[in-house]
């Protein structure tokens, strides 16, 4: 069957035999966007986190059929080296990644959190950022999340000034 959705701003139409195929594999192997990672296949680690209509979703356990007509964002669409998302900018400033494999999932989860809570408390972070990082980069990640919140507010202020 044919499923249509917008991913990183581009309308995509994919032909898929089994509409229950996890979105993760469509993103990785059909659309060849490898930034979204496979970790566990059971929505338990968060490495596959991406955004569906601005909500953080663990795509290994999200059937592609539910993506019909939705807006999907992956790490590749979050920002670019020329125009990094505040979360990516903060991750660079704090030098968060070690092996780096789980980091796209964490950055996507963080971006979704900041959409809802632009200035999250430590408790908000503890309750919402529940992915697994085996290198255990959590210490820097917490700093980076607070920094991303600051950067977002700075960006918003600048935008308001320009308006």
């Amino acid at each position, binding site marked *: 069957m044919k499923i249509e959705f917008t991913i990183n701003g581009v309308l995509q139409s994919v032909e898929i*035999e*089994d509409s229950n*195929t*996890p979105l993760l*594999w469509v993103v990785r*192997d059909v659309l*060849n*966007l*490898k*930034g*979204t*990672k*496979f*970790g*566990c*296949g*059971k929505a*338990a*680690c968060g*490495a596959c986190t991406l955004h569906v209509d601005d909500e953080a979703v663990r795509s290994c356990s999200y059937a592609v059929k539910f993506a019909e007509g939705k807006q999907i964002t*992956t*790490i*590749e669409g979050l*920002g*670019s*080296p020329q125009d*990094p998302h505040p979360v*990516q900018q903060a*991750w*660079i400033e704090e*030098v968060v*990644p*070690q*092996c*780096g*494999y*789980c*980091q*796209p999932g964490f*950055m996507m989860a963080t971006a979704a959190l900041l959409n809802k809570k632009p200035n999250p408390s*430590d408790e908000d*972070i*503890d*309750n919402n*950022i*529940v*992915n*697994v*990082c*085996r*290198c*255990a*980069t*959590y*210490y*820097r*990640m*917490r700093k980076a999340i607070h920094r991303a919140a600051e950067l977002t507010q700075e960006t918003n202020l600048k935008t308001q000034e320009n308006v």
Partner: protein
Amino acid sequence: MSKAKKLSRRKFLVRGGLGTVGVLALGTYVFRNPIRRSILKMVETLPPSYMGSGTEANLWFELTQENKVIFHSPKVEMGQGSFTSFAQMIADEMDVRLDQIEVVGAATKTGIVDVLSTGGSLSVGSLWQPLRELAATMREMLKIEAAKKLSVEVSSLTTNDGVISNGLKTITYAEVAYGITEWNIPDTPELKPLSSYKFIGKPVKRIDLASKVFGDPIFGLDAEMPEMLHAAIIRPSKIGATFNSADTSKAAQMPGVVKVVQIDDWVAVVAESYAQALAAKRTIKVEWNILKEWTEKEMREMLRVGKGRLMITQKEGDAIDEEDDELVSMIFTSPIGAHAQIEPNGALADYNNGDITVVLSTQVPGKTQEFVADALGVDKDKVNIIPAYLGGGFGRRLNTNHAIQTVQLSKAVGKPVKYIFTRKEEFQNDLFRPPTHHIMKGKLGSDGLIDSLEHHYASGDVAIGAIILPGLLNDVLGTDIGAMRGGNIMYDKIPNHRAEQWHTTLPFATSWWRSLGLLANTFAVESFIDELALKAGKNPVELRLAQISKEGNQKRIYDVIQLAAEKGNYNDTPMNGRAMGFAASTDSNSPAAHVVEVSIENNQIKVHKVICAFDCGFVVNPDQVRAQCEGAIIMGMSASMFEKMTIEDGELTPTIYGPYDMALMKHAPKTIDVHFIQGADIPLPVGEPPMGPIGAAVANAVRRLTGKRLTDLPLKL
């Protein structure tokens, strides 16, 4: 194959290594000149951890037309940051900027790979001298040719940012290299003084930072090949199960299935997509031979002090008299630990008329090449293992023999095949951190100091049986040197001290896990020392300092203990519902000590603060050494406070994150301060040693806060 593309014709290659330095210019070998004695000597005297072999084509460096240096690293990058340290060394000695350097993992066909492994926290230390000397030699080679091209004296030339100049004329490295077919190899130049380095010793940002923040496809599982198919392999769940037969009739009819493959004693499905391969796999019924259903209790009974093979690994003074009234004794245990690295194992393999290419995340490209060649019956030089960035290593990828199966599948279907472990396979087919059992015995002297201390410990395999050290340890040394890490007593002024190892091979695979025996051994020894300090009525830091020499290498341990206590304001009396815990260890010649501050919240241990003192010699990248300490501390907390595999119904369980309880964001301390002491002028191991003290430090804090001595990992109130 993105990496293969880099070896294009329009690039200049400097070839080095044991036995030869040759030059490849514009795609053509011109000569293979015997290496100058100085470089040969340098390679011969490399530390034992570095085992580059001279028989393969030895590509170290490429210089591109864009005046960039590509370094083919014999060591892989698994998060430890060594690629960045290598770039720092090259930049400083070759006089290029960091952004002019790219580091890639060397492939076995074209580069030098460490024939042993990337592991043991040895990457930066082992290449510290040779890599700087190679970079300096290349700089001089380029200057010699530049002098000819510019018609000036070599001595008039200076180098900066990849440009050679005599003040009037300039030429880039790439311009120098263009068209050169014969190179003069000078004697190895003097290295620059440490004080003059612009990058070495500075907290430069990781060179792979952007790739990892913007989601570049750099990991093993991200690799692609044209017409690639996907595979799922069936692995047993029960310990010790062997293949009997399989009913695959349904699987062959499933959508997308290309072939159901049965080779010897295993079955796999190859399909057009991974989801299809998994769906077909679920329809296959395998009959397993299960001789015995193992239980946790039986395993624990096998693994205890007094069972297995005894090796005395340390013996000073007399053994404690068992009848002595003053004898204090405690038992400690640690559980089976999983690696749980987030990128599952897997491989992408292409078998093409006996030419084999495998891309994967591995700590052992060299061994994987050997084993694939043996299994497929081809010459080693037909096998190209291309190591990708690892989505975590932690010792798990010191055995990547699933590469063999992936190649066999590719051969069976005539196309490239990518295989990925499911998470359940990953948890049940891990090469686990072995469980341990410890009996600590001690006695105080009349002066209140420790008079006798003994560590008797039982462990499953760590180094024994491992593919990177075949036979040797078992047959020659007898001791499991991996299980031994942290097992000996470092307090040399305790008059009588000894360590005895009981080794048992368990019915499931156990092997390398970040820091090996250090985590459990230090937990037992340092918890017990804290207990003896309580019994003696002494401050545990002062007791430790009183029992360790201030001379030689012992002084380095003394110094980190003192510094951690000072920076952490260690106080052995709980205050305001919080208590401090102290512990220290030395591992691979890098001593570490931690002060932690804990409270109990909702009947859970909460770690607020960790202050770490660490002596890993000369620090090449302070930011990344700090990152390794932070990571080792929290990963060590995770292993000490949460993680545990058990045997249920003959299976290792759990098989998923969550039930396999690990430290998350909410468990991470809000403060982790790392203080360095430079007790040696060379870089010493970093990645594992800071993991040692954390379990004991937390347990010691809990003891002082609650009066309860926790003796089993994971620590539960």
